[in-house]
Each structure stands twice: as C-alpha cells, then as structure tokens.
C-alpha cells in the first residue's frame, strides 16, 4: 500500500503539482474518507496523492456570503456546513444533508468537494446541492475558471466532467428569491441506521413560496436512484404556480410520478430496485404531508 504524497501549501503550488502529474496516475486527497476505503480495496501501484488539506487559500477552504448567494470553497468540511447558521436558516436541505452524512468524526474531515468529486449516486451533500442548482467552479492549471451547473457536473457513475488538468475549486448556491416568504426545504435520507449510513434512496428538495403561499421556485434532486444524482426538472416545473398547502392528493401523486421518472435504480446488496422506486414515490408525496 505504498503511494507518493505531494503537499502543496498554496493554490499556485497546487496547480503546478496538477500540471506535473496530470499525465500520471494521480488522485486528489481532500478529507480522504473515501480514499482510505479505496486504498484498502484496490491498492493501486505507483499512485501519487495530491493532498489538498495543506493549501492555504480562503477561497478554497472558506465560505462567503454575497448578494448572489453563498459560495463554498471545495475544501469546506461537512462539519462547517452543519455549524453555519446562514445555511441552517436559508438552505435547510444542505444543512440536513451534511448532518446526515456518516458520523461526527467523519464530518470533521469530509469535504463538500470530496462528496461532489466522488460522484457517488448516494452522495448526500451533492444531492442537496443539486436541488439548490448549485454552480461549480472548475479551476484549470492555466489559472482559468470554467463554470458548470451541477446538473452537468456528473458524467456518470463515479464520473465527473473534470478534466485531468482541472480541480473543483468552489461551489455557489444562488440566493433565495427576494419575494420568498417561506421555504420548504429538507433532505430525506432513507437507510437502515440513523448514522454511519449510506443512502438507500434520498430526496433533496428546496421549495420557495411567496406571501400567498404560491410556489415560485422549486428544486428537487434524487440520490441512490440512478447512475448519478439527478435533478427532477419536470417535477419541479409542475409545482410552479401551485399553492404549497393546497396540493391535492392527485397532484402529490403526479409530482411523485414525475420525480420517479428520473429514477432508474438498480438492485444491490442494500435494496432492490422495486423497493427504491416505491420508497422514492412515497417520500416524494410526503413533502406535502
């Protein structure tokens, strides 16, 4: 289980390291919570790990609020997300997703960037960010930033659109609409245990209503139900203009059907495809109950 480790201290050094190793067998190490498991499973020969935890760059590690919304550096930990009052109040879906992640210990080191770049269909933070329609900043070795909407970020099972010379630098979530009066926002994680659990099915939603209770913006994303996390666009569009509190049983079910249309789950050791579909339908309905 031997590997080389590079410890850049600045973003400049980081980009230089990426440039140097881009043609070789390298991977980034952020919180390393997934990496440790991979190492035990398939120790790869001649691996170089670019350790991101020593990089001193507030934009890479910190969190910043602006009129446009909230920007998180890719190295922001799940713990910091959980502790942030702004996130807790304005984006409960993200707070709850981060809080449902693994355990207190793991959350101290696990990062938002790591959760995104692992590109697991059951990534909890990633699913919440998809429902918030976050924007990803991909920094290349040239120093240029390419912006990609989160819904285009995941290219497949454990695959992203990141190129070998790019790194996920930050993620921005748009501010809630000014005229928003109420937010219905939550992360529903279905699993067996209440901690140290990997989602069997998950649903993230962030719904904004105006002073009349009319839905003016809706985001919903599904996890562990398809090869990637998916944004349920038609289900969200369906809600616009409807009064949240007056959604009928029929509409609930129609919404749930639309969410379900994005799912193509598999049967694996944790659950059958049939179970995942049934539960996804049920929890989609439950938003309005």
């Amino acid at each position, binding site marked *: 289980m031997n590997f080389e480790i590079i410890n850049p201290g600045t973003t400049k050094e980081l980009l230089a390291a990426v440039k140097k190793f881009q043609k070789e067998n390298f991977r980034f190490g952020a919180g390393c919570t997934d990496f440790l498991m991979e190492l035990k499973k398939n120790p790869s020969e001649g691996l170089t790990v670019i350790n991101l935890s020593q990089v001193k760059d507030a934009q890479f590690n910190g969190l910043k609020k602006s009129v446009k919304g909230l920007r998180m550096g890719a190295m922001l930990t799940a713990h910091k997300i959980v502790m942030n009052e702004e996130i807790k109040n304005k984006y409960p879906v993200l707070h709850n997703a981060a809080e449902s992640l693994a355990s207190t210990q793991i959350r101290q080191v696990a990062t938002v960037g790591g959760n995104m770049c692992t590109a697991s269909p059951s990534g909890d933070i990633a699913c919440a960010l998809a429902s918030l329609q976050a924007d990803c900043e991909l920094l290349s070795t040239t120093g240029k930033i390419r912006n990609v909407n989160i819904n285009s970020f995941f290219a497949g099972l454990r695959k992203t659109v990141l190129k070998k010379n790019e790194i996920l630098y930050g993620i921005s979530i748009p501010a809630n609409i000014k005229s928003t009066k109420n937010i219905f926002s939550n992360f529903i994680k*279905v699993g067996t245990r209440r901690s140290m659990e990997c989602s069997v099915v998950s649903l993230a939603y962030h719904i904004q209503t105006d002073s009349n209770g009319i839905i003016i913006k809706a985001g919903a994303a599904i996890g562990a139900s398809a090869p990637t996390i998916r944004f349920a666009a038609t289900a969200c569009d369906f809600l616009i203009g409807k009064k949240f509190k007056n959604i009928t049983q029929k509409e609930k079910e129609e919404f749930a059907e639309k969410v379900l249309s994005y799912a193509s789950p598999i049967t694996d050791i944790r659950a059958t495809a049939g179970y995942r579909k049934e539960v996804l339908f*049920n929890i989609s309905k439950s938003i309005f109950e």
Partner: protein
Amino acid sequence: MIKKLKIIGTPVPKHDAAIRVSGRAIYGHDIVLPGMLHGAILRTEHPSAIIEFIDVSEAKKLSGVICIITADDADVNNIGYKRDHPILKKGEANCTRDEIAAVAAETKEIARKALNLIKVKYKIRKGIYETSEALKESAPQINKFSSGKFENKNIAEKFHYEHGNIEEEKKKSAHIISRKFTLPRMTHACMASSNITASFNNIDKKLLLYSSTQVPFLYQRDMAHALKMNPSDIRVIQPVIGGGFGSKLDMHPFEPICALLSIKTGRPVQLIYSREEEFIASPIRQPMEIELTAGVDKKGNFTFREINIVKDNGAYTSWGATTPFVIMQAFSSLYKIKACRFNSTAVYTNNVFAGSFRGYGNPQATFALERVIDLLADELGMDKAEIRLLNANEKGEATGQGLHYETCGHKECLETVIKKSNYKQHAAHNRQSGRFLHGTGLASMLHVGGGAKIYRSDGCGTILKIDPYGYCTIITGSNEIGQGSETVLAMIASEELGIELKKIKVINTDTDIKPWDVGVHASRTSFVAGNSLLGAIKILKVKLNKKAAELLKTNHSNFDYSDNKIISLKSNDSIALDKVVREMHFSEPNELAIADYFYEPSSKFQDKNFKGNVSGTYAFASQAVEVEVDTYTGNVRVLNVYVAQDVGRVLNPLLLDGQIEGGVVQGIGYALTEELLMKEGKILNPNFHNYKMLTAADVPDIHFFPVETIDKEGPYGAKGVGEASLIPTAAAIANAVCNALDVEILELPITPEKVLAAIAGKKKLKTEKI
C-alpha cells in the same frame, strides 16, 4: 439474620474501566515479542472445489518469508465439536473460510504479499447451499469426516426430546397454530478482531499462547489434541479481550495454524484478522427453520408444543451444533406446558458454519415461541398480556424437562413490564392510520442462571490470599471478557473481608497459575466464580478468626470484617487485618493467609433423554417494546424497551445496566438490521458498511426494572444475567410490528423491504377478500 451489605448492590465502576478508556489495556494486538513473525492465511477462492494442486514455490522465494505450510506439512488432528474439521484443508474446499495455506513472514505486508504468490488450482464444484438440497439422496457427502451415524450422510447432529402426551393435549386444545419461522445468520462483530500470538520454545518444547479464548482450559485440551501435544505443555495467557459474546467458545483453525507456524519456525508468530476476515471467518449465530405447532385450551392454558428444527450446520460442526440443549429448554419449560415434542437436525452444507452466540439458540426459539403465543391469543380473542400471565412459570415448579424453579420471577417480570410500559393502554389506543403506525409487543424468556452442566464439571476453582500488608489477591479460574466478573469478585471479597477495593487484585489470565474453570459461557461467571470465591473466603476466615481470637484474648469466633479490621462482635475490640496476617505468618502456627476452594454447582448432568436439573438456578425476563413503523419506507423505529429481569439479586447496578442495555441493542440488531448475507457460499457484506450493526444514534430508551428473587444457590441470591437481555428482544419487536401493521412476521431481520412487502401483502389480501 442477613447482615446489611456495604459493597454488594452498589454501583462500583468496572475494575478495568480506567485502563480501557485510557488506552492502556493490552489487547492481543498490542503484544510484541522478540523475533516475532507475522502470520497470514490463504483461504479458498471457491466455497466448493477440488484442490488440484498448491504451489508455494514463488511465495517461498519472497524475501522475508520464513515459513509456508499446507495440509501436507501438518501432522495434526481434526478439530471441532465432532472432530470433523481439518485445520488446513487437503484435496477439497467446502466452505468460503477454508484455510489452504499459511505464511509466517518478517512483516504483515510480506506475509500478505506471499499469499498472492501462492498458486492454487481449483476444479470448481457445484456447491450445496440449501439444507433441502443436502438431504437429497443424490447429494454428495459434504463432510467426509462426519460421524455417519445418522440416516442421511449430510446430517451432522440430531436431538430428540419429549414430555407429556402430545396426542391427548391436542384433543384438549381449542385452537392449534402451526407456523414456520426463518432465522438469519448474525455475526458477533467483536470490536477487537480475532488474534493470537504463539510462541513455541524449541528447547523445552513448550507452547505459550496469548489467546482471547473464553474457555482457556477446554482450549488448552483442544489445542493439545489438534497438535498432538500434552495439554500441560501448553500455557494459555489471555490478554485483554475485546468482545466475546460466545464467538470464542470454539477453538478456530487459525489458532492451531498460528501455533504450527511457531513450532515450525521456532519463533513467536502473531496472527491478527483484518475486519473483512473477521466477518468472513468468525462463527455466526445459527440460521435455522423452526416449525412450531402449539395449542391452547378454551380457557387460554397452553397445552402442547411440537417443534421441528432444521439448522444449517455449514461445512463443519462447532459447539453451535449443541444449541438445541438450550432451544429445547425454552420450548419445554418457558410458560407451563403439559406436553412437548422436539426434534432438531443439523445439516451439512457448503455454507459458513455457525458457532455459539450469546443466547445459544434461545433468541431463535423465543422468537418462534412468543410469536405463536400472540397468534394463539388472537385465535382465542384473549388479551396478549393475560394469556402470558395465565401461563407464566411459578416458584416451586418442576417442569416437564426436570428443571426446578426454586425461585422464579416470571410473573413479576411480566406484571412489571405490562404496568411500566402501560401496555394495555397502548395496545388499545395505538395509532391505526396515517403514515406512522405504532405497535407494542411482549415477550418473555427463560435461561440458565446458575451455569449449565453440559461438560462433566461446571465448577470453578479459587485460590485466595491476603498478604502481610493487608492486600488481597483472588486467583480465579474464571476469566474476564468484558462482562465485569473481575469487578464483581473484588466486590465480594471486599464485602466479606472488609478490605477496600483498591487493595484487591484479581489474577485470572494464566492457565499455568489459575485453578480450573470451565470458562465464560451460559451466563455463569458471577454465579459459579462468585460461589467459589465465597467458599475460599469461608475457609480463610476460619484461620483468621482463630488468630484474631488469640490476639484479642477471646474464645469466641464471632467477628465482623470491616475497614481493614477484624472486630469482635462481643467486646467491640478490634485488630488490624494485616496484623493478624503477619502474626499468623511470623508466630505460631507459622502459616500464610491462603485458602483454596473448588465449587461445583448442584446442577445435574441431564440423562440421555435430556431430562434433569441442568442449572443451579434459572433466570427469567420479560420485555415490552413500543415501535413506530414508517409505512412509506418500511423502517421500524424502536421507541421504548421495558425490561424486567429476574436477576436473583443486583450485585452491581452499574454493570447490570451495561449488560441489559448491551443485550437489548444486540437484540434490536437481530430483530431489524443484522444479517450476514450469503450467495452460493460467499459472504456478500463482510464490512460494517453493509452489515448493519446499530450505532449509538439508534439506541432507544431502555427502561430496566430488576426483579430480585434472592436465590438460595446464588452468591447473595444472584443469578446469571449476561445473555438474558438479548433473548426476548427480537420476539417482542416482531410482536410489536405485527401489532402495528396487523401482519404476520415469520422471519428475521424485519428489514424495510419485508415490512413494505408485508403491508402490500395485506392490501392484496384485503382486495381479494372484497
């Protein structure tokens, strides 16, 4: 007159708590010996295959590899309860755990690398993974070392028991219920993975083992048999043990393999399982199918039980094959039952073999038995609490199997949980509609509480000494596997000798030093080792009293021992205990303050029909559980668990709470989440990621109410408590889920998928009915 107790019954923290939480405890994993090598085991790639050849030549060339052994290099005997288990496999593989070769190398990494260089050519066979397949005439013989004494070549063991007149009781029955229950594989998942360090001295030919066995003296004998050695040439030292739960009752192949590597190399060898290996190669709770038919008369009295059990034995036979001893006891003697007929068959398959596991078959039996009681109550239209109270065991009862209940808290346990949980209120007003449904369930259990005479002796020896400084050393045959026996023994000595706890040492880890004990199992340690210690104290006190009387110039022997002093109850004169000890030593009679005692419980070896009073006393418990079922996801959340347990007497409430809470949580895991999944002989979830052991966040409120029946056989009236709290939990949860959903649960664990399927099944049934 019973004197007032000072220490017994108080919440003394665990003797070893500080060293454990501060990381100072020395586990087997921490042992480093000069020149020590590291062992690793190559296991088969296929659960059923012919081994055509094994080529270790490349592995031997690897620098740092000192020794590689295969079956051809080992002159050993088979191990296991039926001696049907070769420690290294030759010619064929029959189970995914099968040990093909073992390496000793300078480092762990080299040992592991060497395993990859061993070439094995397998010819894959079609394995047999269902007991029904194994019992077919056309099936091949799976274990060629099987005794062959049964009608089918793949039967490993059978038990038959009966009492009463079944046919007559059937006639008296107003209702008869018959169901088949399926129980899963559960693994112990000890926090410390399996480990051993073996050191063979090739000068005096003696073998030293640092081993985490639960039964060091039986282990010493088993090891000697395997290695063709003299048992007394093997010394077993137990380092701190990070979890037993029954998993360390059997000796497993890795242990003699490690010893062999040390014998071959003349150097110490250490073998430690990885977590994955722990999941794959540790024993499990027996999976089984239980067919239970039970009757009740029109007044609600239980009439008979008829039981047929088929157990998946796996490829080899362990102590697990003997769990019917305990299973039949639950069926024959929990609640008053007039007739019982019990048959069990353990069948060889190419699956992993089971071992012993806390409860020893009793959680399986209790699940079936208590589920059927609910069904009988439904048939009768009788309250589920009332039917249990009506049939509960009583003090003075002698059961059909010959168990004598000199004390019995069964009824009180039931009454306590029914009352404390507000059972009747809940049962009547549980939420019947909406997404979240609530249910309540009851279950009881019976278990041995004073050891179990399944070996020719169920005793324990103690050597007790007080040194010239007034410190006391208890050398006990029993051992500590985390259950707190050291603490309880120290408390007993402190209570009786008036010596403060910090001056009491417990020595219990070395077979060369300590007197014989059968080991930690059957919830026996506090009872048997406690009584043994009390016996030694009594003998020592005779000597001390004599000297104290002489020094205090009195001719009576009526003394109290307290505050490190011996106090005359007549004159109130006192003398320091250490002074008495010194005077014994340095003046007449010139003897040391030492005593030894061997305690053998009054229990009897059962006859060939399995009848007889097998334990010194019996423990009873009842649990009431409240659950909330999410009908959208199928998740079952346990909200409250009410536990009332006949513990005889509370020796230490803090340790008792630990046993109860730990057991209940293990029981919840058994009920809802834990299952070692297998497909064609391979384990699919050998990790905590997918083997769903519960976490602290899942623990419900556990309300514990000890019931004290003060058994005359137990130390201060205490009974065994270690296993009981786990036994009825799954049954009570299943009953609660059935109560919430109005469905039938016949299988554990009750996974979300099964819950949704049960709800869908009910809907379907309703639709069809309409």
